[in-house]
């Protein structure tokens, strides 16, 4: 069975780490940090917390590296840990203090809302804001699907949802996104198109 370059490379790297060359873990962190961060930030909607959760994910992944059986892709296994870590962060009670970054984001959004007409950037922002209104799991399914790395089966393994349910969630998430866009902006469709 043929294997892709990145798969072989991941496995070689893991084999080296397990032999004691722990510094090689840096390669895996560099390769996947942005993907892991993308999954987590979609669930937590908070950059600071997402950064912390992403670090936790990589540390957990290292600790349990001996458990990686190699039956699935390393990235699938890693994203699964990222997903679970993000969900457990989401369940933690939070102190309601908005970071400066979030305040700035809200101010920017408010300024945005007062402007008339939607241009290319507005359309992008509108969809970004729509994503925030989705349930965390739905948003994760969308993110994983559009990362172009994950098949439906892999998304199913990562989220622990059956493949058919993943398809339904994907459909519903995009439909909801379309509805959110229509409702929250009450613009004439021509502008959105």
């Amino acid at each position, binding site marked *: 069975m043929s294997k892709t370059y990145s798969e072989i490379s991941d496995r070689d790297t893991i084999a080296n780490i397990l032999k004691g060359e722990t510094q090689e873990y840096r390669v895996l*962190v560099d390769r996947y940090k942005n993907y892991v961060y993308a999954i987590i930030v979609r669930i937590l909607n908070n950059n600071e917390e997402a950064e912390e959760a992403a*670090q936790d994910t990589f540390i957990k992944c290292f600790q349990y590296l001996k458990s990686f059986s190699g039956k699935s892709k390393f990235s699938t296994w890693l994203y699964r840990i990222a997903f679970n870590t993000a969900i457990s962060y989401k369940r933690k009670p939070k102190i309601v203090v908005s970071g400066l970054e979030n305040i700035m984001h809200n101010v920017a959004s408010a300024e945005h809302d007062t402007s008339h007409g939607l241009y290319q950037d507005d359309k992008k922002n509108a*969809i970004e804001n729509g994503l925030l209104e989705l349930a965390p799991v739905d948003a994760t399914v969308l993110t994983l699907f559009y990362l172009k790395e994950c098949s439906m089966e892999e998304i199913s393994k990562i989220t622990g949802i059956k493949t058919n349910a993943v398809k339904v969630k994907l459909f519903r998430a995009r439909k909801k996104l379309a509805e959110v866009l229509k409702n929250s902006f009450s613009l004439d*469709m021509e502008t959105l198109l």
Partner: protein
Amino acid sequence: MITDKEIQELIDGSLTEERAGRLRKQINGDEVLLQRYTVFKNIDSVLSDQALPETKPGFTESVMRNLPAAPLFETIKPELFWKRNLIMVLGIIAVCSVAAVVLLSQFSLAEVIPSIEPQQIILKEKTFTIDPNIGFRQELFFKGLIYLNAFLCIFLLEKAVLRPFFKRRRQQYAF
């Protein structure tokens, strides 16, 4: 009537060539359909073009600094999970059974529940007398009740706690 699901499948490219061709034709000939299609197409293209968010500089160094010296844990392989569950359940059964036997050997049931007559059962203030020919054995009856309770406890513990716990761990780390 073309559904939103079909429009999304067309955009994802998961329809057959023939079906996709027919759908495109219908969409091009209907303005309302074209609007619905364009909304979904816009969502698709914005999501596809989304740049991957980036972690702050120094992320990798921070992870490497906080790593333990070597990978620590090795979770039990999935094929061994049922063995561990079985051992735990057998252990619990053994503990419950020994506890029940010790309890019954230390205390007489007549002392614990003096109001019960050996040949009578009281239900809703009505007394039912058991035919002496049946030979009702109170001790056996109560022992049976205790074992039944112990079995139910283990069954519920396994269903409600052990199985979900190990299933979650298996899904989390070992596939």
